[in-house]
């Protein structure tokens, strides 16, 4: 009888410890991502009607990201050309992502932030690093902070180490890596997911060196990313393969899903994509298996309900610091007074006149006189004139 009591006590203790460990695990997982807001920068870099698929790619990702909870105010959408209102579009005001026109990704609530010729390498880098002119409206800014998870999606035509913008300029992988480093140093992201769907896309993430970056690409160096299928009614290819299968994968994700990055890496294997998708996780601090899809694609906030009441009616009292020894009075340093600026700017440089060294003058004129007398001789001087 005492043995059973002993056993039950032992079991209950063990269970409570186990549960607490479990709870702390899930609590740990609860707070493991460390981000408080989500941003998305979605860029389509090509123009012209036959690059319809790039616009459709970007709009599909935009649709998924919006559906999973990131609001328009946190999405910077850059489309280099307008396909929906292109005069070659037989179905105006629509952009389809699937043949048989099953899915119109344009919809009626698309907010494009950078359109047409505003999509340039300079604007893209300025958006990323935040170095925009003061007159830029908020909708065109990436107002992320050090607790933001950012999703960056690029699509267009690319090559080994570069991505072509607008058929006239390129961004190189080095520039992109440096922009991300600037973002890291300015604490503009917590974690960043970089997805690129171009030919030889893996070359674009080769040069990253900042922490907390994860990258996915649709093809390796030396491979081309291929488009999915043409639509005979519209007359162009509607989507690229990688983004098509990515969209299919994302359609199954809902805000509460627990799918993680390892599932994302499996999207579009070589049999479906023809090119080999690649990914890079060495700079990422967490294990990709513990990163949820919704950490980047959605804006999922977990709410903890508490039954406690917090009293906010008392004013917060300022805590006064007492100096260590009472007689020393700390000087108030204002930033302006630290350098004697007015003295510095009114200082004129001391004008030191340079004079050629005396030895030089002596030597030069001796030589000149020597030559003169050698040539003319003192007594022949009058014959010259």
């Amino acid at each position: 009888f005492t043995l059973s009591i002993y056993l039950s006590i032992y079991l209950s203790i063990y269970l409570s410890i186990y549960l607490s460990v479990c709870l702390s695990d899930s609590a740990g997982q609860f707070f493991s991502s460390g981000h408080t807001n989500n941003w998305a920068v979605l860029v389509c870099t090509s123009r012209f009607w036959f690059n319809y698929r790039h616009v459709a790619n970007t709009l599909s990702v935009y649709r998924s990201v919006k559906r999973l909870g990131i609001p328009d105010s946190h999405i910077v959408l850059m489309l280099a050309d307008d396909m929906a209102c292109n005069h070659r579009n037989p179905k105006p005001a629509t952009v389809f992502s699937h043949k048989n026109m099953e899915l119109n990704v344009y919809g009626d609530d698309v907010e494009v932030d950078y359109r047409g010729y505003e999509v340039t390498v300079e604007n893209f880098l300025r958006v990323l690093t935040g170095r925009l002119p003061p007159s830029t409206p908020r909708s065109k800014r990436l107002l992320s902070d050090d607790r933001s998870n950012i999703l960056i999606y690029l699509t267009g035509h690319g090559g080994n180490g570069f991505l072509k913008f607008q058929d006239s300029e390129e961004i190189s992988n080095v520039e992109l890596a440096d922009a991300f480093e600037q973002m890291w140093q300015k604490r503009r992201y917590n974690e960043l997911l970089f997805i690129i769907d171009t030919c030889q896309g893996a070359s674009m993430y080769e040069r990253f060196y900042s922490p907390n970056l994860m990258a996915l690409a649709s093809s390796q160096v030396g491979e081309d990313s291929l488009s999915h299928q043409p639509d005979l009614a519209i007359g162009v290819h509607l989507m690229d393969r990688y983004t098509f299968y990515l969209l299919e994968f994302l359609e199954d994700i809902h805000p509460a899903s627990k799918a993680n990055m390892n599932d994302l890496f499996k999207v579009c294997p070589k049999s479906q994509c023809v090119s080999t998708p690649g990914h890079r996780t060495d700079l990422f601090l967490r294990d990709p298996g513990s990163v949820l899809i919704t950490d980047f694609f959605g804006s999922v906030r977990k709410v903890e309900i508490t039954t406690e009441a917090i009293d906010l009616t008392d004013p917060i009292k300022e805590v006064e610091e007492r100096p260590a020894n009472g007689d020393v009075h700390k000087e108030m340093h204002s930033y302006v007074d630290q350098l004697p600026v007015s003295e510095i700017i009114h200082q004129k440089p001391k004008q030191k006149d340079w004079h050629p060294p005396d030895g030089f003058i002596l030597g030069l004129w001796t030589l000149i006189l020597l030559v003169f007398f050698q040539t003319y001789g003192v007594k022949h001087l009058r014959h010259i004139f």
Partner: protein
Amino acid sequence: MAAPLTLLLVLAVTIRAALFRSSLAELIAERVEVVSPITAWKRVVEGLALLDLGVSPYSGDVFHETPLIIYLFHFVVDYAEITFMLADVITAVALYMAVKDYNKQVFRKQKFALEADRYPLDCLELIRSPKEIYLLNPFTILSCVAKSTCGLNNAVVALFIFSTIKGNTLLSAIFLCLATYQSIYPLTLCAPAMLYLMQRQYIPVNFRRASFWWFIAQYLFMYLGSLFVLICLSFFLLGSWDYMPSVYGFILSVPDLTPNIGLFWYFFAEMFEHFRLFFLCVFQINVFFYTIPLSVKLKEHPVFLIFMQLAVISIFKSYPTVGDIALYMAFLPVWSHLYRFLRNTFLVSCVLLACSTLFPVLWHLWIYAGSANSNFYYAITLLFNVAQILLVSDYFYAFLRREHHLTYGLYLKRKDGSEATLVLK
């Protein structure tokens, strides 16, 4: 017609002074055809300012003049305009007296020549002295108004020519050394100077004769000695060897590719780094390469050789300006008796005129309007240089043809008595 020298000088000085006072002076001083990174006045002022601030003027890529220029302008920088006008005047006077002397010698030589049929007009008496051409040449005026130190280079070269023709070996070596010290290319004028001086002292140009080698040794000793002295003296001016890479390294390795009227900039702008050294050597050798063949051919006519060498230098040097062109064009009236044998005068003069007017037009279109590109400007540069080369080779042909006529008669007849034609092979 030889206008009196003083009248011409006054006129030239008036024109330059008027232009200095007008607003054109700044405009011209910025034109890339007139100033090059080596000769620009702006850079001289900058270098002197750096010196006043206690920094070596050769630090950075601003100043590429020799220390003697620093010394000269340190004292005359406020009177720069007068200095350049004086330089032009010296050049003109030196050339005038040189050519007068040369004419006298040529006359004397031809009196002693016994040829059967000489054409009646030994039209050497009709030579227009080079002074007008030099002073009133728009290129010279532009160069002077822009205060490009090319004018000083020209003055030194003119003094060198004057002293050579006068027969003074020491002065000729010293002035040549000064000219080489300024820019490396007058080195090639050693050969014609030596040939002329040997001719004057009746030393036969024969490799087997000891007097030939002895004279060459003397001249080279004077030349190299004064060059050595000058270089050491320049070291003592600033106390460092900084000026060597800044001046000579700059001339030889052509790092600055600002467009000018030469051939280097476009080519090296589009060259891959891998081949740069090779093509640099090729281009630089091109300047020095014509010395030996031309000296062999023209060993009896060293003054013409000087003219040819000056032309070759100003076409093929790394940073030519219109001032260099003005120098060799000053010689053209000396050979005005060759006019009847020139074949391309119309073409050359039209092309030179057209290109000179097109230079600023295409520059404006390229840089300011943005509707042309560097190819347009380079095309005109090429055409300009081709016209110059054509001019020089035309004169060469005419000279050789005249020599041939002097030896074999003007109206050539074949063996059967019919009229023959000369063909240049």
